[in-house]
């Protein structure tokens, strides 16, 4: 709160509850900041001895020079003043050495100066050495980094996201949000990840802090209490830490949306006890995706394309086998989810697992899946699909290779655990690849980039596979093989000032709006994917769809189309041309010279009758 008046206003008129929360976040942030200043006080304390040694050495040397008698040029005794002595000691101690002034020294003086030279050099070396050692001190540097970071965060004046845990997922998300022009703040325990932020070449400045996100103080410093904080993302690879972040966010800022990465059901349930955070479980999502891919390949294709963000290439439409027997290798969290999902689709599943898991009523083979003998037991020739879902990339790769050799027709799904193995899996060319970090990143992106996209993706599977195939074809015809921009348009008086009369006429159809502002015969290169009106949505409306004031549209298309649409909605007169074909002069003189045009409500043919 930079403005004291604003702070005063807030104190008086905010509700009591609101104030309590603000105070709570402020207190935890203050605690964390106090820790940082404590370190600086400690550093000052440690500088006491070197500084006092330096002062004492200096003063003793200066005093000595003023007390020891010297001689002037005539041989008369003379005493050096304080200023001369201080001057001589200053240049002697700093090893500059201008010589003997104001008169050449006597032997007595020279002996004293010799002693003071050695003393002062030792004093300087000690003081500067300790200062440099303190600057290198880890605690001091991290305290400085904390102060620098909290200053940067508190100066943020635009909406930002708080990303706790900057692993591979955080990096992918960071780049997507950066491309959208959204700011974010990063917390991670690993200082190499935070140092890596500088090398990641983001457009915007990304404040990052090496700190444990489980500490609410660090979250508060990272902007949990900041008014511009939009959402908190708990993306660390530690379930407990994610739970702690969800708790802190829910207790200190209950109104903030929280998205947490989670892989175990227990933790997910425990998170639900705090507000209503949305949890993303990569294995569960992969299972859902695989089910969708089995049932509706085109819907799955559209989903993955839109989730990947701008610039993503159109994924191939796979055709997983709909009936037959599947083999799931590895019965961990992924294996369990997939077995349940595949069974729900009415498919037979054989599980291969080396431990002794509690598989109920399943076809279970105990043994190491990468062992050729065990794999031969699984009767690969009569299976239709195989999932290599262990948490070891080498095992997964060898499973895929062995399965392909014995049955080239198999549908192969594999799990990639480490980012470093990506080229190997790409060369292997498996049919479905699960990369948990990417699944999470796409999911979070879909939830946060625009709420309309998230709504679209949730409603879309219900429309059926043929409908999805049609949409994919339309998008492909429009954008080519790479996804272009996705954006939101609000038909409100504030965001679209030129449309008020047109929308109120009740005859405003979508087809009239999506036209090229230069030539109304040409359509605009954009598709409206969804229209939301008072929480109700219409997916992919056609050109006859009638718009009303307050509608929100999700539009996909080229960047040029986005600019053109902005022009239509903001510049007066252009919409008029699109609807009636009448070009409204933009300058005052031409408007006076040309006859007054018809209001929008008149049918277009009446306008065309008039001589222009």
């Amino acid at each position, binding site marked *: 709160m930079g403005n004291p008046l604003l702070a005063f206003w807030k104190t008086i008129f905010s509700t009591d509850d609101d104030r309590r929360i603000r105070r709570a976040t402020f207190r935890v942030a203050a605690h964390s900041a106090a820790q940082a*200043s*404590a370190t600086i*006080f*400690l*550093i*000052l*304390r*440690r*500088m*006491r001895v070197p*500084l*006092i040694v330096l*002062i*004492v050495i200096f*003063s003793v040397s*200066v*005093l000595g020079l*003023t007390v020891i008698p010297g001689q002037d040029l005539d041989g008369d005794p003379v005493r050096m*003043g*304080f*200023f001369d002595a201080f001057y001589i000691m200053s240049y002697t101690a700093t090893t500059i050495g201008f010589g003997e002034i104001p008169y050449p020294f006597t032997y007595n003086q020279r002996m004293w100066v010799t002693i003071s030279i050695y003393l002062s050099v030792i004093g300087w070396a000690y003081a500067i050495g300790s200062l440099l050692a303190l600057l290198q001190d880890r605690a001091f540097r991290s305290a400085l980094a904390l102060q620098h970071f909290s200053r940067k965060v508190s100066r943020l004046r635009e909406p930002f996201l708080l990303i706790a845990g900057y692993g591979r997922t955080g990096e992918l998300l960071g780049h997507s949000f950066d491309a959208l022009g959204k700011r974010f703040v990063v917390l991670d325990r690993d200082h190499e990840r935070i140092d890596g932020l500088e090398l990641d070449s983001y457009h915007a400045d990304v404040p990052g802090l090496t700190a444990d996100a489980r500490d609410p103080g660090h979250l508060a410093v990272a902007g949990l209490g900041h008014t511009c904080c939009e959402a908190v993302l708990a993306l660390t690879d530690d379930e407990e830490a994610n739970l702690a972040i969800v708790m802190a966010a829910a207790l200190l800022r209950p109104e903030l949306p929280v998205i947490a990465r989670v892989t175990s059901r227990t933790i997910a349930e425990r998170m639900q006890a705090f507000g209503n955070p949305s949890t993303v479980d990569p294995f569960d999502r992969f299972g859902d995706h695989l089910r969708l891919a089995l049932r509706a390949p085109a819907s799955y294709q559209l989903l993955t394309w839109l989730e990947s963000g701008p610039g993503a290439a159109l994924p191939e439409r796979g055709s997983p086998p709909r009936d037959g027997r599947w083999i799931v290798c590895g019965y961990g969290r992924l294996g369990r989810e997939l077995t349940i999902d595949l069974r729900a689709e009415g498919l037979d599943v054989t599980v291969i697992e080396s431990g002794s898991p509690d598989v109920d009523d399943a076809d279970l083979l105990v043994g190491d899946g990468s062992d050729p003998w065990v794999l031969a037991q699984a009767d690969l020739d009569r299976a239709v699909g195989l999932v290599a879902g262990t948490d070891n990339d080498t095992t997964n790769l060898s499973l895929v290779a062995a399965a392909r050799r014995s049955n080239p027709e198999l549908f192969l799904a594999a799990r990639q655990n480490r980012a470093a193995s990506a080229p190997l899996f790409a060369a292997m060319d498996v049919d479905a690849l699960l990369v948990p970090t990417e699944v999470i990143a796409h999911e979070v992106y879909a939830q946060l980039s625009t709420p309309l996209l998230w709504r679209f993706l949730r409603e879309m599977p219900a429309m059926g596979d043929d409908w999805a195939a049609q949409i994919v074809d339309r998008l492909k015809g429009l954008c080519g093989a790479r996804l272009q921009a996705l954006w939101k348009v609000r038909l409100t008086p504030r965001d679209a000032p030129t449309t008020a009369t047109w929308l109120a006429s009740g005859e405003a159809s979508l087809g009239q709006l999506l036209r090229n502002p230069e030539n109304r015969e040409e359509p605009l290169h954009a598709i409206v994917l969804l229209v939301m009106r008072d929480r109700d949505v219409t997916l992919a409306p056609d050109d006859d769809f009638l718009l009303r004031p307050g509608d929100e549209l999700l539009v996909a298309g080229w960047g040029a189309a986005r600019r053109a649409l902005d022009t239509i909605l903001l510049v007066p007169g252009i919409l008029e041309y699109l609807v009636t074909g009448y070009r409204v002069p933009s300058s005052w003189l031409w408007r006076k010279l040309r006859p007054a045009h018809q209001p929008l409500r008149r049918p277009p043919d009446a306008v065309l009758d008039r001589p222009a």
Partner: protein
Amino acid sequence: MRFVRFEARKCRRRAKISDRRRREVHVNLEKVVFGFFVLLAATLNFGFFIGDIDDPALHNPYELFAAVVVNLIATVLKFGDRTQIGAVHLATSLVADLQLIGAALLFGYATYVSSVGMNESWTASVVSLSGGALLANIVSVVLLVVETVSFHRG
């Protein structure tokens, strides 16, 4: 209400800690050194200040030098104290340093640069500046005494 109770609890806790400290540790060397320098700074300053304000013979430059040096050491000793009283200590010391260094600079200017030398008016300026520093040093001593007394009460 809650705040008051919290304060009361804090006081009780502090009392307990100081009780323990009194029983276990009798002399804290750091406190002795600190008190020594604060007091020495004040006494040296007073020694320089005392005497007719415009008589250079009554104000020894060596005493001024000693006062400056001891004041600087006292300032450094006050670095890094996080308490409220520590902050005020540091502030008074900085004020005394400022005034004493000002006095020393005036003294140097009068002796080396000014054509008239250390005459009555220059002496008066130097001594009056050191008088200001003396006031700050007295505040320091008062603070020291207050701190000591409150510590012994618990």
